[in-house]
Each structure stands twice: as structure tokens, then as C-alpha cells.
């Protein structure tokens, strides 16, 4: 029923460990709080009911007691006045028949004393041993017209005034036994117990009238008897019999708690089945996907809607993250490449500067050397030697000039200040001039020119193309041993363009380096030991690119290199030099 994935038990355990205790704690807290609140809420009600019931029962008992007192008064008033105070036959037993008629619910009192207006015992001294002080004290109260209700040794004593006419002329005291008192105050059906307690502490200390400790009561009401200033009715009510409201509520809370617990457990299982299961599968798929494919997308076409939505959102997140990561990776790679290139360029630049300095240094050294020789020996130097020296000086100057031109051109190219001014010109003438110039300064090389197929006119920037041809020719000469041939060939193409190639029998270029040949400051490995700046071919490519042409190179290491420049036939617009783009193209 429940598709338990491998991780389910641990997940359930996690849920159980974290949720159940919290839930149980919360339920207990609720239980305790509500219980406490209900106790507070209902306790007041219970207390009120208890007190009310206790009061009612105390009032009931007092009424019964008052009725008893009234009965005794009636007896004393009707039967006893004449026979007790007027006609005393010195037979103390005469009281009994009259007092037997004192009845309330079957109680029968025992006459214990008849006193005169001064509290002196007239009759009864043989019935009980009484303290005269008790009688005198009672007589004092009875003489005021108030009955006395007193407790002694648990028994109830009622003293009532005896009248002759309108005057109180004596007192009749009647005793009711403790069991009769209990029956009087506690009829069947009373929940609780009503006791007479004496304010006299001795009676309380005697333990004769104090309620039983086993009553476990929660409400007591003391009701003083108005006719007596030394007695109280103490009504004690059992709390359990008064109100069940709190108990019902607490039972309700207990049942609610159990139901909540059951609901909680069912809820957990429902959550596991409906939510955690699919979620767990989702997590497992995620792990598997991760394990197998790295961070990849996964399919969720089952399970609750929330899980599917979660999976879709996750997929989108992953895709976005992947793109971002890829972009970051690419950018990092580009930055890395750019950095490496920059480093390389910096290296090349340093190398270029070094090379330029070296290039400048050599001709300058030659110039300086020959000039020094001339200064020292011009007077004794042979004319041929003089011409040689001057020729070397002039050659070095030319080299310096070319070198400066190259550096300046490179600078102009770098800064984009090379102006492109194409015009119709005679390309053959330009090439011939360049070849002648180089032949002149490199007489040891055989420069062969083939310009028969050249168009008479061609639109191009002649100054820039002169430099192109010059660089190519210069390189061919520089990287070829002396006394080798350099062929310069140029012709028109079928599309009206122009192609010019320079072939040498030089050191050649390794095939692996051909792609980098036109990079700024790049020098082939075969150029080691041969002076050069590394910017000539970069300049060639850039200047040819200005003409929308291209440069091609074929080379075989140790055998020679052929550079071919192609210029298309175009009507050019003024384009400012953009060396980076041109180099990149």
C-alpha cells in the first residue's frame, strides 16, 4: 500500500523523532492548560454549588433545630409551667412524660433540668450531673427570652424559657443524645454531613463534634444559630457529589486528547503516504540523477500536484543554474584565454621591445663602429674600405629607418590611425620599386620578379601595399640564406582581383606555427637567431584586411616559404584601420 523507498524508514524515523514528541508535548500542554483553566472555570462553579448546597443543608438543619426548639418551648409553655413551676410534687420523674412528647422525626428528648428564675435547679438534679455554672449561664440567656442551644459531649441541649403569664420565671433544659442530633441534622439523602460545633474550643478539642477527616470535603459552611451565641452549624459537602461539570470536561479533554493522538498518527501516515512518499521518491531520483548524471533534470509525472510542481520548479532552477554555470565557465575560459593571451602578448611585447632594442642596437653599433673607424682612419683608409664603411653606415641607417617605420606603422595600426586611401595606381611599378630597393641593399640575394600578368591599374592604397610587399620581401630575404633566390610574382585574377606572392628558399615555418604566424609579436621558432620584431606579418595581414583581401602562407620547414596576397577588385570606402578586428579576421 505504501511504496516504501529505501529512505522511507529513516524519513519516518525523522518524522517520528521530531514531530511526535512535539505533538505529544503540545497536546499535553493543551490538556494541562485546558484542564487547569477548566478547573479554574469550573472550580468556581463547583465551589459555588458546594457552598450553596452546604448553605441549603445548613439552613435545613437549622430549621429542623428551630422546630425542635419550638417544640420544646411549646411543651414548656403548655405542659410544664403549671406542673413544673406551680405544682412540684418533688417527683423529678414527672418531667419525663411531658418531655417525651417533644418529637421531631421521632426524636425524644430527655428533660435534664428545670430551673427557677434565679437559675436554681428545681428539678432534674437526679437526672444528670450538671454544672451549676452551665445552668446559671443558660438561665441568664433564657431570662432574656431567648432559648439556649448548647453542645456538651456531643449531646444537644435546648433550654427554653418557662413563662408564668408574661414573665419568664424559669428554664427547662432538655437533652438530645448525639445519635439523635445526627439524625436530626442529617436525614437520609443528604449528601454530606451537618454537624453542630461548639464555639467552645474545648468541645472542639474533645473531637466530639468535629467532622470526620475522611469526608474529603471541599465546602464547608458555618451557620450560626441566631438563638445561640455559642453554637454553629457546620455543613460539609462532598465535592464529588456536587457537580460533574469539571469531571465531564476533563473526560472530554482526555477523549479529545486520545482522538487527537489518533488523528495525529493517522495524519502522519497520511502525510507519509501522500506527501513524504512522493517527496522521498523525488529525493531518491534526485540523488540517483546526481549520482549518475551529475546535476540533471528528472521527470516527475506522478505523485501529488505539489510534488510535480516542485519537480518542475526544480528543473527550471537546475536549467537556469546550468546556463549560468556554463556562462560563468565560458566567461572564465575566455578570461583565462584572454589572460594567457595577454600574458603572451606582454611576453611578446617585451620580446618585441627587446628585439626592437636589439634591432636598434645592431645597426647603431654598426653605424657607430664604422663612424668611429672613419673618424680614426679616414685619412689612411683605402677608398674601397671607406665606401664599405659608408655603405654599412647607410645600410644600417636604412635598417633603422625601416625598423622605425615598422614600429610606427605597428603603432598606428594599434591605435587605429592608419588611413586607408585607396586610389587607382600602377601596382607593377610599385612592386618593381620595392624589389629594386631591396635588391640594392641586399645584393647577395637574387630577387626574381614576374609581373607580366599585372593589370595596368588597380585600386588600392599604394602606400600601404608598398609596405606589405616590402615586409614580405624583407622577411623572405631575412629568413633565407644569402645567395638564394626570392621570387616575386604578381598577376590579376579572373575576378578582377590581384594576387602577389613572395617565395623564398629560407628556413621555412613549422606547420604547427602557421596559424599563428600573423599574430602580433609572434616569431616562428625557426627565426631564432635572426633579428626581427614580429610585427611585420601582423602588419601585412592588417593592411591586406583593409583591402578586404587575405594573405595565405605555405611553408616547408628548411625549404622555404611562400606568402600570397590576394586583393579583390573593389571600389573601397574610407575605412579606418581596426587592427584588432583585422588581426582577428
Amino acid at each position, binding site marked *: 500500500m505504501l511504496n516504501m523507498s529505501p529512505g522511507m524508514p529513516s524519513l519516518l524515523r525523522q518524522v517520528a523523532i521530531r514531530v511526535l514528541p512535539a505533538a505529544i508535548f503540545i497536546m499535553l500542554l493543551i490538556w494541562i492548560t485546558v484542564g487547569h483553566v477548566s478547573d479554574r472555570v469550573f472550580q468556581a462553579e463547583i465551589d459555588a454549588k458546594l457552598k450553596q448546597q452546604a448553605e441549603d443543608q445548613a439552613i435545613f438543619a437549622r430549621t429542623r433545630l428551630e422546630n425542635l426548639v419550638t417544640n420544646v418551648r411549646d411543651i414548656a409553655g403548655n405542659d410544664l409551667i403549671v406542673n413544673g413551676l*406551680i405544682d*412540684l410534687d418533688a417527683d423529678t420523674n414527672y418531667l419525663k412524660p411531658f418531655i417525651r412528647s417533644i418529637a421531631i422525626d421521632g426524636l425524644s428528648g430527655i428533660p435534664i433540668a428545670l430551673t*427557677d428564675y434565679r437559675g436554681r435547679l428545681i428539678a432534674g438534679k437526679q437526672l444528670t450531673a450538671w454544672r451549676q455554672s452551665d445552668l446559671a449561664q443558660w438561665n441568664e440567656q433564657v431570662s432574656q427570652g431567648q432559648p439556649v442551644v448548647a453542645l456538651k459531649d456531643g449531646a444537644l441541649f435546648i433550654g427554653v424559657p418557662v413563662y408564668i*403569664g408574661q*414573665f419568664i420565671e*424559669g428554664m427547662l433544659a432538655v437533652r438530645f443524645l448525639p445519635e439523635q442530633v445526627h439524625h436530626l441534622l442529617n436525614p437520609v439523602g443528604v449528601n454530606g454531613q451537618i454537624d453542630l460545633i461548639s464555639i467552645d474550643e474545648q468541645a472542639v478539642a474533645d473531637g466530639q463534634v468535629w467532622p470526620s477527616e475522611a469526608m474529603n470535603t471541599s465546602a464547608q459552611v458555618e451557620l450560626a444559630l441566631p438563638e445561640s451565641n455559642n453554637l454553629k452549624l457546620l455543613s460539609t459537602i462532598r465535592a464529588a457529589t456536587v457537580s460533574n461539570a469539571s469531571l465531564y470536561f476533563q473526560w472530554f479533554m482526555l477523549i479529545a486528547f486520545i482522538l487527537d493522538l489518533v488523528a495525529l498518527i493517522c495524519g502522519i501516515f497520511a502525510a507519509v503516504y501522500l506527501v513524504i512518499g512522493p517527496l522521498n521518491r523525488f529525493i531518491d531520483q534526485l540523488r540517483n540523477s546526481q549520482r549518475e548524471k551529475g546535476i540533471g533534470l528528472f521527470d516527475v509525472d506522478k505523485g501529488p500536484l505539489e510534488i510535480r510542481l516542485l519537480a518542475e520548479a526544480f528543473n527550471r532552477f537546475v536549467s537556469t543554474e546550468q546556463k549560468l554555470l556554463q556562462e560563468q565557465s565560458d566567461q572564465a575560459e575566455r578570461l583565462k584565454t584572454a589572460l594567457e593571451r595577454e600574458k603572451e602578448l606582454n611576453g611578446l611585447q617585451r620580446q618585441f621591445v627587446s628585439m626592437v632594442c636589439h634591432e636598434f642596437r645592431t645597426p647603431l653599433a654598426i653605424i657607430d663602429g664604422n663612424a668611429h673607424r672613419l673618424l680614426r682612419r679616414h685619412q689612411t683608409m683605402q677608398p674601397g674600405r671607406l665606401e664599405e664603411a659608408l655603405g654599412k653606415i647607410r645600410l644600417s641607417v636604412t635598417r633603422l629607418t625601416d625598423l622605425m617605420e615598422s614600429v610606427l606603422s605597428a603603432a598606428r595600426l594599434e591605435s587605429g590611425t592608419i588611413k586607408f586611401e585607396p586610389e587607382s595606381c600602377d601596382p607593377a611599378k610599385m612592386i618593381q620599386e620595392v624589389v629594386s630597393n631591396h635588391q640594392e641593399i641586399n645584393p647577395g640575394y637574387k630577387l626574381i620578379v614576374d609581373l607580366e600578368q599585372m593589370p595596368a591599374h588597380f585600386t588600392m592604397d599604394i602606400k600601404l601595399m608598398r609596405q606589405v610587399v616590402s615586409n614580405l620581401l624583407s622577411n623572405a630575404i631575412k629568413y633565407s640564406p644569402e645567395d638564394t633566390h626570392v621570387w616575386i610574382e604578381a598577376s590579376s585574377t579572373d575576378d578582377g582581383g590581384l594576387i602577389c606572392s613572395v617565395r623564398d628558399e629560407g628556413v621555412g615555418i613549422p606547420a604547427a606555427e602557421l596559424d599563428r604566424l600573423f599574430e602580433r609579436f609572434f616569431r616562428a621558432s625557426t627565426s631564432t637567431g635572426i633579428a626581427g620584431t614580429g610585427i611585420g606579418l601582423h602588419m601585412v595581414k592588417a593592411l591586406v584586411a583593409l583591402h578586404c583581401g587575405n594573405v595565405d602562407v605555405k611553408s616547408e620547414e628548411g625549404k622555404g616559404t611562400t606568402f600570397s596576397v590576394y586583393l579583390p577588385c573593389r571600389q573601397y570606402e574610407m575605412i579606418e584601420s581596426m587592427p584588432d578586428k583585422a588581426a582577428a579576421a
Partner: protein
Amino acid sequence: MNCITRYISLLTALILAPFQLLAAPPIVIGLDADMSSIAAQGGEAIRRGALIAIHELNQNGGVLGRQFELRVKDHRGNPARGIDNIDDFALDSNVVAVLGGVHTPVALRELSSIHRHRIPYLVPWAAGTPIIDNDFEPNFAFRLSVRDQYAGAFLVEQVLKRGYSKPALLLEQTPWGKSNLKAMTKAIQANSIEAATVEWFNWGADDLTPQIDSLRRAGADVILLVANAPEGALLIKSLAKLAEEQRLPVISHWGITGGNFPAMAGPELDKVQLSFLQTFSFFNPPDRELAGQVLRHHCDLFGACDAADIPASVGLAHAYDLVHILGRAIELAGGTDRALVRDALEKVQNYHGLTRHLDQPFTPTRHDALDASSFQLGQFDNGGTVRPLKTSNLPES
């Protein structure tokens, strides 16, 4: 009495004491009667009668050169109080005798104290036979009043005289009632009639209907009543509620006259035939001149000058006579020694009293001064005054 008053009184006494020593002490007569309870009217009548007699004696110089003085105590009908009063009087050496008052039960309870203190006890209003026929020797009790032994016979005689044949006895449950039961029963038997029934009631009874119903069921044709004023009035009121033909006539002992019976009975009194025992009336006194004198003194001393304004006159007359007899006895005794006075009482002779002329009021074997020859029936007039019952007024059975 506050401190200042007390000191002034003491100072006055101290100042006057020497003078008092020079004067003879008064002869004190104690009066122990019901002065405030159900028989207060009778007690007051006794007091007035005693005071009138004392007034006359003192006017004549007193006895043995000593003036008489009356000291009154109220026993409220409570025997215990009566006993205490007797004890208090006995402790006063100036008290030569005690005049009693209503009621028989009190007098009976006082006998022990009287004879312990050996003080003469003069009874003007208490009819219980045992008061005099006691077991004490010498007997210090003397009575000038009704004796139940005679009253019972008299009342039964009146029943027969009026043609009734089946009297019912309605008695208060006291020694007095029991005393009359004895006397009446004896008289009824002696006259060969039969009492319809005997019913009892207690002091303070508030309903006599059960007793009345019992009397009627028993077929009584007349009620012989022994009661004091409150219970007597209750009977009248209860009878008045019955249909006229059901109302039994009542012939009563004199107890009902000890209180303000007319006021207690109210207008119902006119609805019931009521007659009662009397021994004296200012309206038909044996000695009109003496009666007139007493009436004048009553008027002088108490402001009531009309015989109709003197309630309970029997008590007044009896007390008056007893005080005079006492005076004679003191004179005979030559002093106020109580024992000697007691003996002298038995020797007084030829006393012409308000109640009647007595050749010898008391003898050593007879301490009751009156007999049935002094008895008459009385009735209340419309004004509530006790008047002698006219024979013509008696209804025929």
C-alpha cells in the same frame, strides 16, 4: 441609683440615723403577692386593703407605739419567687408577718420557708385547702379567704339550686384545681349527682375548644370552672363562638376576678351566663358604715371613690381584715415576736371586720376565718364591675 444619689442617701441616713434610733421602728408587714402577672389585680386589691388598714392603725397611733408599714414583693405567681420573698422578709427583723396573695400553688410552696423562718403568714386570697391544712406544727399559716373545701360544696350547691344536674368540671391543672376537684367531687357525690366529665387545662392555654367539645359531648348542662382570669376569659370567648343554645352556663370559682377579667373576655362576656364565687361586695356589705369608711379611705389613698371602681374587692376586704386582726394580735402579744404574734392570732376575739363579724377569727385548730356562710355569687355588670348576683337574675334550668 448613681453614685451621687447613693452617697446622698447614705449621708442622709447617717445624719438621720440617730433620730431614727430615737423613734420606734415600724412594724413591717410584708406583702408577697402576684403584683404584675395574671392576678395582678388581686394583688393590688390586697395591697390597698392592707394599706387602708395600716392607715387606720397608724392614724390611731399604731400598735404599741409603733407605726405599721407595708413592704411589697412581687412573686408574679412563681413559687420560687414567693419562697425567695419569704426568705427576704424573714431576714428583716422588723417584719412581723407576711401577707400572702394569689396563688394557691405559690402559697403551698412557701409553707416550708414560712415555717422554717417561723413567720406568720396571712392568706387573703388563696383557697387551696392544704395551705392551712398543712403538716406543720405549729402552723404559722392563717387565712381569711375562701377555703376550697367550702367553695366546692358551695358551688355544687349553687348548681343544684339553679336546677342543673349534670355539671362538668373544668379545672386548671394546678394544686388549686386538684384541690377543688377533691372538694367538688365530694360535694357532687354527697348530692347524689354525677359530674358529666372533668376536663383540665394548663396555664397559658390558648384553645379550650377540645375541652368544651368534650363537655358538650358529655352532656353537661353547666360548667363548674376553676380558673384564673386569662383562662376564664378564653372559656368565655370560646363559648361565645357557639350557637346560643350550645353555650353552657358557667359557675366559677373566684379566681377569674383576680385579673382584669372583663377586659380579657371582651364583649363576649355578655353572651355567656357567668357567675362566680365571692365573699364580699361593697354593694352589699355586711357593715355599710365600715364599708363606707373603707371606701372613703380608699378614695383618700388611691383616688377611686366609687365601689364600682374597686376591682377584686374581696381581696381588699380580706387584706383589710387580716391586717387589723394582726394589729390586735400584736397588741395581745405585747410585741412583735413572731411566735408570740402567731399565738396571739389564735386568741383574737370579737373582730368586727369588713368582710364579716368574726367572734374568733382563728383558733388553735382552725386557721380559716371564713366558711361557706360568707360565700355568695357575683357577676359582672355591663361595666365590668363585680356585683352580687341577684337571685332573680339566675336562670332557671
